[in-house]
């Protein structure tokens, strides 16, 4: 070890902040080098002077009581503080986004189901209406009348369809 390296690490050596092997090297160099020994001694003395002659201030009596009064039950950590912890914020944000996504998908799925049901019903309605139109033109035949009555019965089941009277109910037809 040279003097330059020794001088660089002297403070860390004094504070016990270097590895045991490096400490041994430093110690042997300081023991052997009068200049570094003098440097170390003066650093040590300065450190001791500061340690032994710096003023301490003391807490005023009753400081704990003052603090205790300030940290009443209202400032006690609550379970909701968990949600305000910064490191959990991304997790909470992702969880909320996930919940929003799930709710959105669920709503969309329900909407799609309604749409499918409506489309199915409308297709059936159109089919029946076309059949009725066809049957209306065939009421002169027995087969046509039977089909028309059958369709009328089907229409009665549909609350959205207004069922009008059949031609047989018309007094002017008699």
């Amino acid at each position: 070890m040279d003097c330059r390296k020794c001088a660089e690490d002297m403070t860390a050596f004094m504070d016990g902040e270097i590895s045991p092997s490096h400490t041994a090297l430093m110690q042997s160099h300081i023991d052997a080098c009068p200049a570094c020994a003098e440097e170390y001694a003066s650093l040590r003395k300065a450190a001791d002077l500061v340690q032994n002659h710096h003023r301490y201030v003391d807490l005023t009596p009753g400081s704990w009581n003052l603090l205790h009064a300030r940290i009443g039950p209202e400032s006690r950590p609550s379970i909701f503080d968990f949600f305000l912890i910064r490191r959990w914020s991304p997790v909470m944000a992702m969880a909320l986004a996930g919940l929003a996504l799930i709710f959105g998908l669920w709503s969309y799925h329900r909407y799609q189901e309604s749409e499918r049901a409506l489309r199915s019903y409308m297709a059936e309605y159109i089919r029946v209406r076309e059949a009725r139109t066809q049957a209306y033109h065939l009421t002169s035949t027995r087969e046509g009348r039977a089909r028309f009555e059958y369709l009328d019965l089907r229409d009665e089941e549909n609350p959205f369809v207004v069922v009008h009277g059949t031609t047989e109910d018309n007094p002017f037809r008699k």
Partner: protein
Amino acid sequence: MDWVRKAKKGDIGSFQRLYEAFARRVLNFIFRMVNSAEEAEDLTQETFVTVYQKLGTLKENDRFEPWLFRIARNYIYQRYRARPPNMVSVEELDEDGQPVTQIPDVRKNPDESYQERELEDVVERTINALPEKYREVFVLSAIQRLSYQQIAEIVGRSLPSVKTDIHRARLAVRRQVKDYLKV
């Protein structure tokens, strides 16, 4: 760190023990930085209120000490921003890093108690004359006796950077007090 664990659960008795164990050290750290005992006491209270409220966020209980000092440091710098403390600034150091402030020559006075008080003044002025960057690491290391790793955590800098600053601060302090080392 059993007190930390219990205080986290809301045990006020354990929190009081933590306060009794650390408050004086925090107070003196803040005092060295802001140069006012009254402000230091005020900021120590603020620090411990925050500690109580945020203790649940402390991940590792055995890192309570650097965490506590980091909170205190945040309050110090908030106060710095609001109103710079009364201290010798970097601009008031001469070319060799010597403070312009005149340090009394205590060697001329034979009275020991007076000498003691004056030595305290010398040390105080020397610490106060250090640039802020060096002063905080010096106080944390030389007075609070925290490890370099803990100091690095508190000030949020790398270990080599902290080591270098402590070394420079020690050299600056020695330069200031070298005339008094044999007193």
